[in-house]
């Protein structure tokens, strides 16, 4: 458990609560082709979040992550149990972000394997209390509920705060209207962006940002002394012994 002082310190350090600091947003695209409609949707969602923040007088610093570039690193992390340097940096950035946009193509009725693998190698405490906007793309609108049946439960498991609006874009949503910014997709994108920003601006202090014990994958990233086990969290051995004879 954190002490009150630590919670207060976290709150002060929280960029969401410091109006001078830009909000940190990581936008993850699991698109496969180049260019991909998944990447396009990811960019649009990030822009929507940035615009919404601007209306509140805040700036957003977005880091865009293409999982295809990390595909081998993710596979290696699955096999070895630890993340290489490039993947470790992204995982650390996600853990430190004020918000996350996660967009996947729908394959075989669900998120892509690459998308799921990325969240499988992530520390399973990294997203606790973190606002997440989910999005997906597909060739047909018939798969749109995959957002609700697959992505939303995944992030619920990870204890993220998932924005109520998830954005699904089928091929037919792109470019069928001459002025797509006023089309239905654009409206959903803007609404989702506003929701995400709203959560980012009033985010409760996050607990266990990616340095927790019991991670799905062994300590990724570079562990400085800051990363040490907290002595307050260590159960004195006498208590382990006492617990045997209640």
């Amino acid at each position, binding site marked *: 458990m954190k002490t009150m002082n630590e919670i207060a310190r976290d709150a002060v350090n929280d960029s969401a609560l410091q109006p001078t600091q830009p909000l940190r947003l990581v936008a993850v695209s699991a698109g496969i082709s180049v260019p991909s409609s998944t990447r396009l949707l990811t960019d649009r969602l990030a822009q929507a979040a940035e615009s919404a923040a601007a209306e509140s007088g805040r700036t957003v610093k977005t880091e865009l992550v293409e999982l295809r570039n990390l595909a081998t690193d993710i*596979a*290696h992390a699955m*096999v*070895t*149990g*630890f993340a*290489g*340097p490039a993947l470790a940096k992204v995982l650390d950035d996600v853990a430190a972000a004020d918000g996350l946009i996660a967009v996947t193509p729908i394959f075989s009725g669900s998120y892509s394997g690459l998308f799921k693998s990325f969240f499988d190698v992530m520390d399973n405490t990294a997203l606790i209390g973190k606002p997440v906007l989910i999005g997906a793309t597909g060739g047909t609108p018939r798969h749109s509920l995959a957002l609700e049946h697959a992505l939303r439960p995944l992030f619920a498991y990870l204890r993220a705060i998932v924005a109520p609006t998830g954005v699904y874009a089928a091929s037919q949503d792109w470019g069928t209207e001459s002025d797509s910014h006023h089309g239905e997709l654009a409206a959903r994108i803007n609404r989702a962006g506003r929701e995400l920003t709203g959560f980012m601006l009033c985010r409760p202090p996050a607990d266990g940002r990616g340095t927790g*014990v019991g991670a799905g994958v*062994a*300590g990724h*990233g*570079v*562990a400085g*002394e800051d*990363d*040490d*086990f907290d*002595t307050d969290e*260590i*159960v*004195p*051995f*006498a208590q*382990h*012994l006492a*617990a*045997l*004879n209640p």
Partner: protein
Amino acid sequence: MGQMQFGIFTVGDVTTDPTTGRTPAEAERIKAMTAIAAKAEEVGLDVFATGEHHNPPFVPSSPTTMLGYIAARTERLVLSTATTLITTNDPVKIAEDFAMLQHLADGRVDLMLGRGNTGPVYPWFGKDIRDGLSLAVENYALLHQLWREDVVDWSGRFRTPLQSFTATPRPLDGVPPFVWHGSIRTPEIAEQAAYYGDGFFANNIFWPKEHYQKLIRLYRRRYEHYGHGTAQQAIVGLGGQVFMRANSQDAVREFRPYFDNAPVYGHGPSLEEFSEQTPLTVGSPQQVIERTLKFREYFGDYQRQLFLVDHAGLPLKSVLEQIDLLGEQVVPVLRKEFAIGRPADVPDAPTHAALVARRDQDAQNEQASVDDMTEAVAKG
């Protein structure tokens, strides 16, 4: 035996040699492990440690049997384990097996306790994996007591009670074997080692060093907390993984097929990536020396360095050549270099003789303070 101990630890896997397709028989692998131990002594290494496993493709299910055999064929080598399963072995049997081995080996015995890495092993020995940590705590508390008290009355959660029980034989010279606690991820085990003032071993293979640094810093801090000495006086052991040839390109070329097909990390990152990200060193003896000397910067001055040299299907001949290189070119330099700048109050590696001497010294000090008190009372 100098300030630090150097040796090898083996998992005891039977793995097909990917370059020939040949798989050694169990008998061949078991005999190879004893040959590796004999070679370690021959070239002047200090320690041989065997794993304990109860499932194929591993052979060493009965470590004290193997170590007893090796004890009879060696003179100086310290015989140890990596690790002895404190969760699924009966602590009464551990107490007796290792005390027996201590007598046969004239005290050249210590052991490393661990919880193992194989979940299914628990039911094979009538245990429940959900009790893993509690088993480690209770079983070791009993083992600790059995080695220190001649007559034990005990009851606990995980085995039948003991009444007026004496584990036999008693530890050699009344001094139990030194105990290391090995863990790769569990802070509670570092805490356990610190609580008892025992050693802590991080296998330091297959994962980035940062992972092990956290555990060792915790152990050192808690060792000091429990009053066994300063943090830098805590007893730390480390693993390491090497493959050497005189010419580093030759080492890489020869080891690559073994690396690419190895259990645990094979078919994953490249040898180059894995070497950069984990403590694996494939190259010349000089490269191994330089890499190993860095361990002190990462983990502090430590007591024991064990190398993994015999897995992934490497033929015995290559393994023995590795041990030759360690004994002839690597370890002599490491002994010299590690001694430089080592603070005087950092303890030497634990040996039976040192533990006996410390026990006697403690008894003497206690007697002296009793004498002082008696004198003071008489004068008073």
